[in-house]
């Protein structure tokens, strides 16, 4: 049972997502698929950061009825780490901006060559 804690499960899921994202970026030929792989990699890193702030048996960092009536009346013993969650909020917004820019580039590239196969864009290759 020790290996099936929530913290460990989310760590495994985040590692898998990161590896899938890297695999997609390295092996896919279609630009849209590469962008999707970037977002999967993003999600994996976000899950990793949040799961590092997880503390067993505690609730979300919102002070309401579930905190004050919990078994431990002290806030310090009732909530998970709020700092990684705030950092991930930042990371999600940056990830959105990067994805939006990538999609705009993809549109521009498609207009230039009418294809999204990355092998066709070899102007800068040497």
């Amino acid at each position, binding site marked *: 049972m020790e290996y099936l*804690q929530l*913290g*460990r499960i989310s*760590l*495994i899921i985040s*590692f898998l997502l*990161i*590896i899938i994202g*890297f*695999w997609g970026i*390295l*092996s896919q030929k279609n630009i849209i698929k590469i962008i999707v792989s970037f977002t999967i990699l993003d999600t994996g890193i976000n899950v990793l950061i949040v799961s590092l*702030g*997880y*503390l*067993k048996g505690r609730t*979300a*960092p*919102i*002070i*309401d009825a579930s905190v004050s009536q919990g078994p431990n009346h002290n*806030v*310090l*013993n009732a*909530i998970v*780490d*709020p*700092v990684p*969650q*705030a950092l991930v*909020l*930042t990371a*999600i*917004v*940056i990830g*959105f*901006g990067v994805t*939006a*820019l990538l*999609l*705009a*580039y993809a*549109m*521009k590239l498609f*207009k230039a060559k009418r294809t999204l196969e990355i092998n066709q864009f070899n102007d800068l290759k040497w």
Partner: protein
Amino acid sequence: MVRNFLIGLVLASIGFIFFNLYNTYEPKTELNGIAAHYAAKGAEEIGAANIVTAIVVTYRGFDTMGEVTILFLTASIIGFFLKLSKKDEAKKIIHHGTSELLITSAQILVPIIFLFGVYVFMNGHLTPGGGFQGGAIIASGVALLIMANPNRQINHHAILWIESISGVSFVILGLLGIFLAGGFLDNRFLSLGTFGDLFSAGAIPLIYSFIGLKVGAEISNILNKYQKSQKES
């Protein structure tokens, strides 16, 4: 073949690093350092029930301003990239019609989606959510409108004005914090109110509402640029 081998090698080495991390991972048992301070003092110092909001808007408010700036930069770069010529601007998007289901549901759902977005960013200091989430929900309503009618004209001037006014108000609220309270983006120049009320936590509901409006306008602006860029074909 060599390529697949190299990809496999990279993935295997990343997997190896993760495997070692996983083996040495020990779950934390208590909050430490800055997190403990935020958890213990956040409620009385800031007055927000949602500690994450207290961190994002007040303790690390400067970061949030940077985030909003990055979103603005993204919107402007996309506007620069997808700029249309005068001739293309007058064209229409050619499409094969949208389904009746989408059109009707857009008419019914869009006001509710907007209302929900406003609810999410107004209650950012009490419930899960906040300016960025609320703004994204509002923009999803705009996305539904565009999908229901690809040739819909989004009011560009309204978006620009909402974005500019809320951005300037955000900075002014931050500066008021310097003059009336402890520092930039300090929320305590308004009374903290009763803990857990809608109008509590000083300036946080105001700041988060302006962030929500700005983010909603920026994402709608990006969607509008994507929509217009389809005119050329």
